């Protein structure tokens, strides 16, 4: 794809942090946050970066948003090099992060937004008309004269969204934008994103999230990223289609006894491709991926042999969560620092 039609382009981007805490005093450890990420995002696409906490999503976004330099490799936004053409890039982008605290508590919503818009050089007339329109769009017009210290988390994030979009950016980076929001506020934010993309088909939006359903709902294409590497990049539909040869079940069972030997794990049962277990207070939830339905009786027999009875069983369609589990070998909400050694909890 030619460089002009690409909104974001990275080539073998690596980012290494030096952190304190080496074995000797004063010695620095290195921490590889990005380990050679290459990707291309065409203009007009809503592209998602999906991965667990610590996967490197935010690092990548920060590099693209000119807040961080890559240790090696190249990254371009709107055809401009983020390392050398910083100022030009900044005129074309914006970034909104979840849980953002920017702004001045004693200013009103309108005043804060006016101030941020002026940092982008917008004139008062443009700001005024666009502010009114956008505040109505996200539903905070009637709160425009409220000091932001008096806003709820959801309303504050809506204000942050307007801040991100008021400068009419060509490329917007959204870093976990619905983090900490309630269901309604998160839905409003997602609706806003969809509307904006529909109204501005030549603009591009890069979204990081660890909410699978959000990525599935919003993104045209997405990359799954883990431990600083891109594992796969495709549309949500294509990613899920990869799993159509598999049969997926959700099982609720009585709490499962620990396996007595490495051979005693569910993965050892013939026909089981992968399994994740989430322990609840008085039951365990199993997500099974099998080669076919005929593998199920053997699994149930195995569970029964380990003293666990079946509470409910449901066959289901593949989700992005399953794609992630298949690729990474563990669930998305597991800590990346934990090892996965079978019977993946």
């Amino acid at each position, binding site marked *: 794809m*030619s*460089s*002009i039609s690409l909104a974001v382009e990275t080539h073998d981007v690596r*980012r290494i*942090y*030096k952190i304190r805490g080496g074995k000797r005093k004063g010695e620095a450890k290195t921490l590889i946050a990005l380990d050679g990420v290459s990707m291309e995002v065409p203009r007009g696409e809503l592209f998602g970066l999906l991965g667990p906490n610590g996967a490197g999503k935010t*690092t990548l976004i*920060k590099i693209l*948003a*000119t*807040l*961080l*330099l890559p240790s090696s490799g190249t990254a371009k936004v*709107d*055809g*401009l090099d983020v390392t050398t053409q910083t*100022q030009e890039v*900044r*005129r*074309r*982008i*914006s*970034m909104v992060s979840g849980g*953002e*605290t*920017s*702004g*001045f508590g*004693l*200013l009103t919503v309108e*005043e804060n937004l*006016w*101030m*941020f*818009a*002026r*940092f*982008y*050089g*917008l*004139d008062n007339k*443009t700001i005024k008309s666009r502010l009114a329109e956008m505040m109505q769009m996200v539903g905070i017009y009637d709160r425009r004269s409220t*000091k932001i210290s008096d806003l709820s988390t959801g309303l504050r994030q809506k204000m942050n969204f307007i*801040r991100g979009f008021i*400068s*009419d*950016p*060509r490329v917007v980076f959204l870093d976990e934008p619905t983090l900490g929001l309630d269901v309604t506020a998160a839905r409003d934010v997602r609706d806003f994103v969809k509307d904006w993309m529909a109204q501005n088909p030549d603009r591009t939006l890069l979204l990081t999230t660890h909410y699978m359903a959000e990525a599935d709902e919003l993104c045209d294409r997405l990359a799954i990223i883990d431990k600083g590497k891109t594992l796969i990049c495709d549309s949500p539909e294509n990613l899920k289609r990869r799993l159509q040869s598999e049969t997926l079940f959700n099982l609720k069972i009585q709490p499962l006894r620990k396996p007595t030997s490495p051979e005693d794990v569910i993965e050892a049962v013939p026909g089981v491709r992968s399994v994740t277990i989430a322990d609840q207070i008085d039951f365990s939830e199993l997500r099974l991926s099998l080669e076919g339905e005929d593998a199920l009786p053997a699994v149930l027999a195995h569970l029964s042999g380990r003293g666990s009875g079946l509470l409910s069983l449901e066959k289901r369609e593949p989700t992005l969560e399953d794609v992630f589990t298949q690729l990474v070998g563990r669930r998305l909400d597991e800590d990346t620092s934990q090892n996965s050694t079978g019977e993946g909890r």
Partner: protein
Amino acid sequence: MTQIKTPAPPTAKATGAMLFWRTMWARAYPRIVGSLVRERSWLFFETVLPLAATAGYVFVYQAVGAPEEYVGFVVLGGAMTAFWLNILWAMASQLYWDKEGGNLEIYILSPGPLMAILLGMAVGGFVMTVTRAAIILIVCSLAFSVTYTISSVPLLIAIFFLTMIALYGMGMMFAAVFLASGREAWHLANLLQEPIYLASGFYFPVRALGFWVAAASSLIPLTLGMDGMRQLLFAGDATLGFLSVEVEAIILLILSVFFLAAARFMLTKLEEIGRREGRLIERRR
């Protein structure tokens, strides 16, 4: 590879001087609104406290039987503390505060120049600063019957403005230094409070410290600024001055250029380090 021209940004936005201007006033706005409309309690705090401190030093001079002109020296010094405190607390340490509040990232991300943002903070804080300085000057002058004999008004204005330019240039440079030091900024601001009152001669003629100490202190623009203004305001006492007013004006001019250039260089450097090392800019706790 053929370089393909990228399209212009969608909305016409100001660049260059106009962007600088808009950014500066935008950042000044919270301070102006904050001080004039929303939280007016500062007026009390910002005037009563320094008035008390200035009066205290006047009484010390009276207790030891100092000549009359020393009262004027203290009053001028007391008024000028407002500018020094504005530099330290509302400018030099402000990038650190803004980092903590989550705003620095937005400043860096926006095309608005960091120098414009810092200047905006200073301009916004100027309302408070000038009020504070003026109140000390007027109230103490009246209360202690200070007599001013101005020898040259144009030179007095020139010295004052050169001092301010050099001082605020230094404040911008400090903002970068404070943030880059990785320490909590108020420790550095604290370090530069009383020790600078001493070294710059806020409450006595700086030449009392001896030539070399006074010369070293002259790196702080207020040292020569105050010395020059004292010579011009109390015309009969030019003998108490450190250097001649003309020489002081030239040095202040050099300092202005130097500090503004240094500030620009260091702020650029700061951003570069921030982006390279992945720290400085973002809030970590």
